[in-house]
């Protein structure tokens, strides 16, 4: 089952843009001696085969037709399961008929020796058991293989999506789709055929009953339609109740969660009784849901469980009459009993099947909605690799507006999308450090995002080493850019793996050297498991400053010629900020660096500072030049300095230009 990464990179057509980089991996290296192979999967072995099929992209087809390729990929398991379960059930249907004959022929009339039937029943039972085992295992195998395909298909699709998509969707919704919707589609695709087989068995059993006695067969079957109908009704009324209960349990959980996490506020304001009331109200709503659920189940489940018994009583009555008049053997009573019990389940499941189908179709639509989204930032067919980058970056007449792509139902909100950048120009020469300052929403972060092609410009172009970034492969471009963001995101893996995130094959020494340079080595060694300590959402909690230093070490290991710092110290307190500043200075040495900041103390050493306002550069120059100039930068700087000094308020606010934090985000 194991494949190497070579096979993995041999992804099919839709991934071809990147395989150029992979094939050249062995020979090409960048100026810094970084093998291009660093950005193809390394250090991981695929233990499972890539799914063979995915959903049919033709969105005009029905949901079932679109899912067909996935089922077809598992046709062997599928047909094994269907055929064997049919065989098993047919054998099972024989047994009551054999017992019927055994009683009439061996016990009542003594025409056939008893052991003849005993042997047959044993044989049929054994073969039926083996067929049942094989059909079930292949059925489950197919069910979980389909789930595997769907999950991986969706995940691969998500990794191809661009940022505009992630801006619009909520990850909670995506996860919920990945969880319950995949389940309901998988359940339907696998169990629907099986239930149909079981129902066909009901037909066979009915055939046997007809062959024994036509009138009695119809009498016995008289309650079956009601079982079917009740089963369907029951699911229909119980589904909403159980979802209602789930949503109300979530409310209770919310109250508890907030109470526990906000315990200081609750206690400070002596709000215990108020909280208890809130919980009691939420609990009361759950209670109503459960009682409603019980009442609805009470209406249906006794009917479903007892209707087949009514059939048995009728068989006893009419069958008894026929036996007395000699038109029916005793054994028939027994056979009818067995057949009726056998048919109860398929009739109930038929009702279930219809409900499952409705749920599955709604779930499938939600999954297809994701799969039908196309990435907007992709490699051009003739895209080339960026190698030996000098780190020369040029923005020429760049224009940009967020959210110009098509929107689907996942959209969070709508609204006009004014230009965030309009006619933006900037040239960073190799090794230069340039800082962008301005208030939130001025467009300064957008500059960084279009450079790394997280978004594509709406007008103008960004050049790296005189290549339009859109003519470069995404992987090679991003391999040449190291990014440190305002909220350092760490994954729930060891610190070592986090630092080596961009180069999973990095050596132990390289990781530790990077951590040392980032000023992180000291505290890492004091952690319970040192570099092997698992951090992130499900691991050890580090302080903001520690996380940021690891993020910087991560960028150092990547060793890219261009560095983007997007408000890298904004979320830190002053002490951590000082430590991180030192690490940043180490990171920027000898690299082209674009710094985005609102705390001016962090950028005074930059080669050039640009003040951005409404997407335009309104001032530029070195720190001292700008101070001398006495413009916006100077007043902004004075304001921050005074703020740090203390509260004495000499008020010359007429000349003060503030950079307020605007709540309106792009």
């Amino acid at each position, binding site marked *: 089952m194991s494949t190497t990464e070579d096979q993995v990179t041999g992804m099919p057509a839709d991934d071809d843009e990147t395989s150029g980089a992979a094939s050249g991996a062995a020979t090409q290296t960048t100026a810094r001696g970084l093998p291009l192979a660093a950005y193809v999967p390394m250090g991981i072995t695929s233990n499972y085969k890539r799914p063979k099929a995915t959903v049919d992209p033709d969105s005009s087809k029905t949901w079932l037709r679109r899912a067909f390729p996935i089922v077809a990929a598992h046709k062997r398991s599928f047909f094994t399961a269907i055929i064997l379960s049919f065989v098993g059930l047919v054998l099972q249907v024989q047994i009551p008929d054999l017992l019927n004959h055994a009683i009439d022929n061996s016990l009542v009339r003594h025409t056939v020796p*008893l052991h003849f039937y005993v042997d047959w029943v044993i044989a049929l039972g054994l073969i039926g058991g083996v067929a049942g085992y094989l059909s079930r295992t292949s059925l489950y195998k197919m069910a979980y293989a389909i789930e595997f395909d769907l999950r991986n298909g969706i995940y691969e699709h998500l*990794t191809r999506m661009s940022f505009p998509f992630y801006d619009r969707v909520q990850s909670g919704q995506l996860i*919920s789709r990945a969880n319950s919707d995949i389940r309901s589609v998988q359940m339907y695709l696998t169990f629907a055929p099986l239930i149909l087989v079981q129902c066909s068995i009901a037909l066979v059993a009915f055939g046997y009953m007809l062959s024994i006695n036509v009138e009695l067969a119809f009498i016995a079957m008289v309650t079956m339609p009601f079982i079917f109908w009740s089963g369907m009704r029951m699911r229909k009324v119980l589904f909403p109740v159980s979802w209602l209960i789930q949503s109300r349990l979530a409310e209770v959980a919310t109250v508890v969660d907030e109470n526990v996490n906000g315990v200081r506020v609750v206690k400070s304001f002596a709000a215990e009784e108020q909280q208890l009331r809130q919980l009691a109200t939420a609990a009361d709503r759950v209670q109503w849901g*459960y009682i409603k659920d019980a009442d609805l189940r009470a209406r249906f489940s006794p009917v479903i469980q007892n209707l087949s018994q009514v059939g048995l009583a009728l068989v006893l009555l009419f069958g008894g009459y026929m036996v007395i008049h000699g038109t029916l053997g005793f054994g028939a009573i027994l056979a009818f009993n067995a057949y009726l019990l056998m048919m109860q389940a398929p009739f109930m499941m038929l009702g279930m099947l219809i409900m499952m189908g409705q*749920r599955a179709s709604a779930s499938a639509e939600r999954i297809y909605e994701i799969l039908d989204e196309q990435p907007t930032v992709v490699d051009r067919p003739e895209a080339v690799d960026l190698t030996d980058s000098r780190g020369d970056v040029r923005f020429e007449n760049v224009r940009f507006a967020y959210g110009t792509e098509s929107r689907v139902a996942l959209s969070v909100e709508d609204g006009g999308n004014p230009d965030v950048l309009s006619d933006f120009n900037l040239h960073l020469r190799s090794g230069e450090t340039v800082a962008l300052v301005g208030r939130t929403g001025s467009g300064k972060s957008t500059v960084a995002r279009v450079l790394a092609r997280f978004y594509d410009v709406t007008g103008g172009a960004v050049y790296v080493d005189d290549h339009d970034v859109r003519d470069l492969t995404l992987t090679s471009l991003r391999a040449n850019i190291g990014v440190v963001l305002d909220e350092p995101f760490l994954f729930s893996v060891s610190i070592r793996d986090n630092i080596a995130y*961009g180069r999973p094959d990095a050596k132990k020494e390289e990781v530790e050297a990077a951590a040392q340079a980032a000023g992180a080595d000291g505290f890492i060694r004091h952690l319970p498991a040192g570099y092997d300590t698992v951090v992130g959402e499900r691991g050890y909690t580090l302080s903001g400053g520690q996380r940021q230093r690891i993020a910087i070490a991560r960028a150092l290991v990547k060793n890219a010629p261009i560095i983007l710092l997007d408000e890298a110290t904004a979320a830190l307190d002053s002490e951590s900020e000082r430590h991180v500043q030192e690490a940043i200075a180490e990171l920027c040495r000898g690299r082209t660096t674009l710094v985005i900041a609102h705390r001016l103390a962090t950028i005074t050493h930059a080669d050039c500072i640009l003040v951005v306002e409404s997407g335009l550069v309104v001032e530029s120059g070195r720190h001292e030049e700008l101070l001398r100039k006495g413009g916006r930068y100077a007043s902004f700087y004075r304001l921050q300095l005074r703020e740090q000094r203390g509260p004495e308020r000499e008020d010359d606010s007429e000349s003060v230009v503030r950079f307020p*934090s605007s709540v309106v985000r792009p």
Partner: protein
Amino acid sequence: MFGGGGGAGWGGLGGGPPGAAQPGMPFGGIPSELQAGVDLLLTQEPERGESDVTFSHQPSADEKRRLSLSGLLKVYPGMLALALLLVAIIAVATQLGPWLTETAINHGMQPGHGNFGLVVILAAVYLAAVAVSGAAQWGQVRVTGRLASWVMNDLRITIFRHLQRLSLDFFTEEKAGVVMSRMTSDIENLQQLLQDGLAQFAVQGLTMLVITWFLFTTNTRLAVITIVVVIPPLTLMSIWFKRASERGYVRVRDGIALVLADLSESLSGVRVVTAHNRQRYNVVKHRNIVGEYRDANYFTGRLNGVYGPGSQLLGVVGQVVILAVGGNMYLHHQLSLGALFAFFLYVNRFFQPIQLLVQQYNTYQQGQASVIKLRILLDNEPSVLEAPDAVDLPPIRGRIRFEHVSFGYDPAIPVLEDIDLTIEPGETMAFVGATGAGKSTMAKLVTRFYDPTEGRVLIDGYDLRAVTMKSLRSQLGVVPQEPFLFAGSIRDNISFARPDAPDDAVWDAVHKVGLTDLIARLPYGLDTVVHERGQSLSSGERQLVALARAFMAQPRVLVLDEATSNLDLQSETMIEAALDVLLQQRTAVLIAHRLSTAMRADRIVVVGDGRLLELGTHDELVALGGHYAEMYATWISQSHAA
């Protein structure tokens, strides 16, 4: 606050109309195709007012009783008795069929000279028995459903009330998850057990007894042989299956948890993933994780593949035994034909009870385990207790006194030693010092989150341990370091301390702290719902809301823990202005992390190593040339360097 059932939970300001539900939990919302059904259901829900539960720090005698399943059920003796009666009726009525068939065959169905009248009567009895058992099942589901939901409701309130009594030291980060699972999954376990489990346990147990009794009265020898052949292997197989599938279930559950965690992390870290070109690596990693989950599912699939057909096969074996042994007995006239029929019919009915009993036993075990866990939770005693003879603290003038106060979270490691300090009414006192010096601890003693290990903390001469918690805390205003917002509207958050406050009062608070502009910008104004602890607001805005909340409480004493993280300039200015309003004419304890804040105070205390090092105004302390002067000098030089 909890109106409406269908919020999709998009998050973000303006994401939903006021009052939409906000499932912040893993629950992802009701699927749209079921929404109509849910809405229909909700039309049947009667209007019920807010609950009228009351809270007191002193547990009642009932609440002190040890938690047990039987104790919980005994509260409703009538319902319990009714449930037991219905269970007995079900067990007998559903098993009458085969016996009636036997009687009909033996006494009514001789070909040619049968007694059809008897057959008619027996069939009528059969139908009647079916009707009785149906009616009893109807009643039982309703009765046990009610019993279970009542008991669960009682339990939720009891546990939560106990949680409200527990002191702050209980709620460490690690315990938050534990508390959550007690209040959710453990109580849910019991719900399952009580609603269905116990009744099923009783019904199936009785059913087996009834069947065994029928078989033995019909024919002892055949009964012994059948039971020996069928019951032990079926029981063993069921136990094996239960154990193995439990193992499998744990694997599956862990597997899906890993799959979803990996997915969730890939989504929230998407910027880092993209920036580091990790997509392909992650695809392979995710495939490995999904693959392991699939293998866990294969395992349970194979178990089901063995158990289902296996127990069917045992059923066939049972029938073969009856046919071979019973058939021979009939041929030798040791057994009537009707009795043989009864054996055939009953042997199939043995299977369901055994399988269900094995399953229910598991539910029972889980339920018991949950009871024990809940009992342990209830055994936690609050470390800060309200004295039984506590008096109400009269309106505070605001003189706070620490008298020889020593304190340690762990008594062996003192955090504060012999502190003596008086804060005068209306004074603002700033605490400064290094992290861990004990300044936050002093504030926690004022709010009585902890009690001193030695000495006393007094407000207006009242020892805090001698007054009721409510009278103390309702006169204190606390602004924590990280402002915590509750799910709900901005209005609910601001009026947290006074939920019944009139609109004017809320607006007054909004204006005073300078939130007016923000509220005007929000789509639903004050009724805008904040999601995910207010993540849609900036951290400065969250702090302003927290200040408005403190202002609403009109506290006599204010305790404020300054936020450590950097705010942008305008937010800082706004918060300072709000603080000025808030500090007016109040005694205030200010835990300052920045000297610029400390300087606003009337006096400053420097705390270090659990002691008070220096005390005085800013100018006095600078002149003193001690710790404070040194801190001030470093700070000034840093701002210049910048």
